[in-house]
């Protein structure tokens, strides 16, 4: 499903060049469950952003579902994000003025789906993450775990094949974190490819495949 060939990403900070990714080769099959680990600044988020088409490699080639997506223009990559990729973030990133249901509906709104169908899908998604009772609650009225479950429901609203989570439990206590991971793993079991960045060894151990990064390189990959 995912194929990275010699992908590098450099950032220019003033005069300096920061090599966030150095010639990474990676191949991921559909339906995999992967944990990305490694010290801070090793390039995990950079890798995930590239996979999610929020960023572009400085060199190398990225193909998704057999299609070269390296050179897609802005509108095309927005479309791919909309249709194939779901994001979950450490800081939830819910829109504070929208209630849970409206937050979950955002990708559907962006995709231009009709209100009637939106409503139906959102109700189902809320039920899937066990928040049917909280549909009209604002983010400020929800706990961390609930916020992250809303975010997961939102990520799933377009039934993406690829689910990318950058430290989804980073702001949650251990028990809530486990709970949230349970929801994500449930989605993986239903077929979604799940890639999770985590600093938590216990969570990392639950993934079938573990990729460890250091200094912009993949230094260990238990599938390779």
């Amino acid at each position: 499903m995912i194929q990275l060939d010699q992908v590098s990403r450099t950032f220019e900070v003033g005069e300096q060049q920061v090599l966030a990714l150095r010639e990474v080769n990676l191949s991921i099959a559909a339906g995999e469950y992967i944990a990305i680990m490694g010290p801070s600044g090793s390039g995990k988020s950079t890798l995930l952003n590239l996979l999610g088409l929020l960023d572009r490699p400085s060199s190398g080639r990225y193909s998704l579902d057999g299609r070269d997506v390296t050179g897609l223009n802005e509108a095309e990559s927005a479309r791919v994000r909309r249709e194939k990729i779901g994001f979950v973030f450490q800081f939830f990133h819910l829109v504070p003025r929208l209630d849970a249901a409206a937050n979950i509906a955002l990708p559907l709104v962006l995709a231009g789906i009709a209100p009637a169908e939106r409503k139906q899908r959102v109700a189902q998604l809320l039920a899937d993450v066990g928040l049917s009772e909280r549909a009209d609650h604002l983010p400020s009225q929800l706990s961390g775990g609930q916020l992250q479950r809303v975010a997961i429901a939102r990520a799933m609203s377009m039934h993406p094949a690829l689910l990318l989570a950058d430290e989804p439990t980073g702001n949650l206590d251990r028990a809530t974190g486990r709970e949230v991971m349970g929801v994500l793993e449930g989605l993986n079991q239903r077929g979604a490819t799940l890639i999770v960045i985590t600093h938590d060894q216990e969570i990392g151990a639950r993934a079938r495949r573990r990729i460890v990064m250091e200094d912009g390189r993949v230094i260990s990959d238990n599938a390779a």
Partner: protein
Amino acid sequence: MRLVDTFSLAWGTLAQQPRRTALIGLAMSIGVGAVVVLTALGEGARGYVLEQFAGLGTNLIIVIPGRAETTGAAPGVLSGQSTRDLTLDDANAVARIPWVNDVAPLNVGSAQVTRGSLGREAVLLGSTAPLLTIRHMHLGIGHFLPPGPSDQALPVCVLGDKIRRELFGNANPLGGWVRIGDRRFRVIGTLAAQGQQMGFNTDEVVVIPVAAAQQLLNTPSLFRILIEARGRAAVQRVKEDTLALLKTRHEGEADVTVITQDAVLATFDRILTALTLAVGGIAAISLGVAGVLIMNVMLVSVAQRRAEIGLLKALGASGGNVRALFLVEAGLIASLGAAGGVVLGFAASFTLGRVYPQLPIVPPLWAVTAAVATAILAGLLFAWLPARRAAKLDAALSLTRR
């Protein structure tokens, strides 16, 4: 993304910051309101002046001896030409031109008018019966000059209201005698009090037959010939025919000037319209100021909402979607402001109309439309830069908390 959803998302953001929205809207309102009320005033002034002119008769054509203009004429016409006088015969000939309704020759002078020991200086108008209708004068009591051949110097006169009061007081002036210069005239009528009318006070005139005036003033010529055309459409035709006729009568010399009330009216119309436009334009500058305000606020807003913009992009919004959101937001504020401004402008115009009832103060539709369009356009134009900035925001970067 559906248009309705774009609007409702943009509206949500605006509704969340009601004070900010209201303040920018207010700035727009003031601009639009200013344009509306100032153009209403300008149009009111224009309407007032046109009305005054129309009171004098829009079908009026005036023949003046001598050429008024020098531009465009052949050099020979300019110097050493003795201008022929206008005569009663000229006036009679003009009366036979088709599409002419009426003609009144006119002589103007000033003379001492006395009755017994009472006397005063008055403006002497020598003319014929049609003068009354051509100049839209109103008769008080009695009769105006009798119709008949214009070369008969009948010793009769019609007194302006003020002259009547000063010479006769409360006594009935009809049939009374007054002395004008060295002749005696019988009073056959008086004019109604009309007051000042475009710089000409009919209350202080004495009207006598034109032939009598020529004898009194000792002149064979006329001061003006006043012509009334049959309807506005005939004015231009009558003007040309008059010029041609007088040219042949004056041995091929085009030595008269013919002005039409229409032309004067058109000039005033142009001047006052230009004035209205200028005033409206100056008011429109405030719309630009409001636009700059929108730009500023939107730039701040883009900076504050980096994370939200990044999120929308991660969820599949294209740069175009994001740009549309910000433009719609600006467009909504501007439209709200414009609507408020129209209300404000109409309210102010209504109030002014109450204060100055003689001015027809109604905001002109074109100005209202232009002001609203300018406001919305300014809003969108000035929001373009912030919207573009938002659209180009690096999603990965704006989602990270650094």
